[in-house]
């Protein structure tokens, strides 16, 4: 896939993620009002709308992703700015030479590593890490061990993230504002894990529009 097509795919992906977050912002805020401070949907939506506005048609895929990350850093606020945006900026260097299956695994691992490091969170703390970790591990396994296509691997990663979100529902929060509730946080899915799942689902939708089952681009006019 040439750089122009990658670029177009990334722009479509951003539009898709932004649309999904906008559609779910009320739901995300509702989840956050149960165990947080009821602003996750609005904050994340503000961030992705800013990223859409900032996106210009220049630069390599890495620069594009970095630009999205910077927009999130500048406009989401609180701890989510560094977690969603800063991690994207950090991982964006993996796309400097374009996107292929190996680079996508490196990107995913780099993003996960930064989220865990920045948030000082691990699996089981009831955070976005509980959705990202199984998604990234499953994706890497599917690509490297099973040699599946990126699209097929992403399908599995989304399933894994969904199971991660369900896992956050039944456990007690150890990190973030929800941890203040202690046992009262049990029974509520983590809003950050949930928004992470929505982002992955939107990315999957874009991948399905651009790739066939062998990672070849669909028709030339896939845009």
């Amino acid at each position, binding site marked *: 896939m040439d750089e122009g097509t990658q670029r177009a795919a990334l722009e479509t992906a951003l539009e898709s993620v932004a649309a999904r977050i906008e559609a779910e912002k009320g739901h995300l805020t509702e989840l956050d009002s149960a165990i947080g401070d009821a602003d996750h949907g609005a904050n994340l939506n503000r961030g992705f709308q800013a990223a859409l506005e900032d996106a210009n048609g220049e630069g390599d895929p890495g620069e594009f992703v970095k630009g999205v990350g910077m927009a999130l850093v500048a406009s989401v606020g*609180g701890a989510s700015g560094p977690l969603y945006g800063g991690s994207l900026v950090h991982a964006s260097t993996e796309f400097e030479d374009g996107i292929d299956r190996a680079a996508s695994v490196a990107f995913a691992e780099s993003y996960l590593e930064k989220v865990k490091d920045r948030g000082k969170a691990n699996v089981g703390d009831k955070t976005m890490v509980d959705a990202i970790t199984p998604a990234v591990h499953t994706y890497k396994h599917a690509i490297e061990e099973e040699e599946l296509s990126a699209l097929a691997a992403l399908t599995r990663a989304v399933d894994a993230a969904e199971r991660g979100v369900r896992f956050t529902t039944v456990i007690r929060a150890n990190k*973030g504002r929800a941890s203040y509730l202690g046992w009262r946080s049990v029974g509520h899915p983590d809003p950050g894990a949930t928004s992470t799942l929505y982002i992955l689902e939107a990315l999957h939708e874009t991948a399905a529009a651009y790739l066939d089952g062998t990672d070849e681009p669909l028709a030339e006019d896939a845009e």
Partner: protein
Amino acid sequence: MLDSVDGKGTHMKKLINDSADVVSEMLDGMVVAHPEYVRRLEGTNVLTRADAPVDGKVGIVSGGGSGHEPAHAGYLGEGMLDGAAAGEVFTSPTADQLGAMITACDGGAGVLCVVKNYEGDVMNFETAIELAEMEGDTEVEYVVVDDDVAVEDSLYTSGRRGVCGTILVHKVAGAAATRGDDLIEIKRLAERTVERVGTMGMALTSCTTPEKGEPTFDLGDEEIELGIGIHGEPGVERAEIMDADAVTDHLSERVLADLEIEENEVMTIVNGMGATPLMELYIINRRLQELLGERGIETWEGWVGDYMTSLDMAGCSITVLELDAELKELLGAPADTPALTV
């Protein structure tokens, strides 16, 4: 002015225009009040020293949510801070603005960030430092202040909160930088200050953020809240109202127990939370110094006033710093800022 009417028909009275503009308008007001000390970094909510960056000196920067005035921009000037970033009320500044501040305050000798321990603040400072390192060659270090002895974990933190003791870290780091110490040495001194300082606060009333327009917690007429933070979060214990001496004893006993003071000389701050008459702070200070004297602890210097506030909360905090010769020299060094002159 009358800004909002809530569903119960009660009014929030504040001297503001639009609640969305409070931070920006405050910063503009500070700049016109103190043009010889501070200027605004264009396109940001960052104030810097008017002469920043100071060539060859380590830059000392801080920042956090607004609502704690005079912290942090009030401490901009010779002998203290070079940069102060203002977030929205009780909300961390964003990493891009912190990054712009770090770059603007680098006089070639690096920058030390003094960060209060709140998850949002720490994560945004860490991200800003990472961005600064990705973009340029600024050498950056940071120190996290966690002086609140009331809680181990809170609504906004892992570990203790950073509160009024932060001002003393500004003072020590600022004096060391002015003296010409290098970044690593200043960081060591700042961390030494953090290790030796403790604070505990209490509230007579909650505070009201311009955004929400109603008190952040309810407190009855005969109740006080002990162990409060500076963001209108509830404290660790609610008690029946007690007199000033009893409040002083309660707060200072907790701080002293935590510090396990070995040296016999300390510096103290009796800090107002924003809406406390100075009269009451002096009454607290009277008992505090009496109590320290009973313990054989000598106060080298005791500040009384509003240093780290929580909007319109009535109440106070007591800070004690265990001194040594090294810290004493830096705390006694000159400082010339809008909010503090030494």
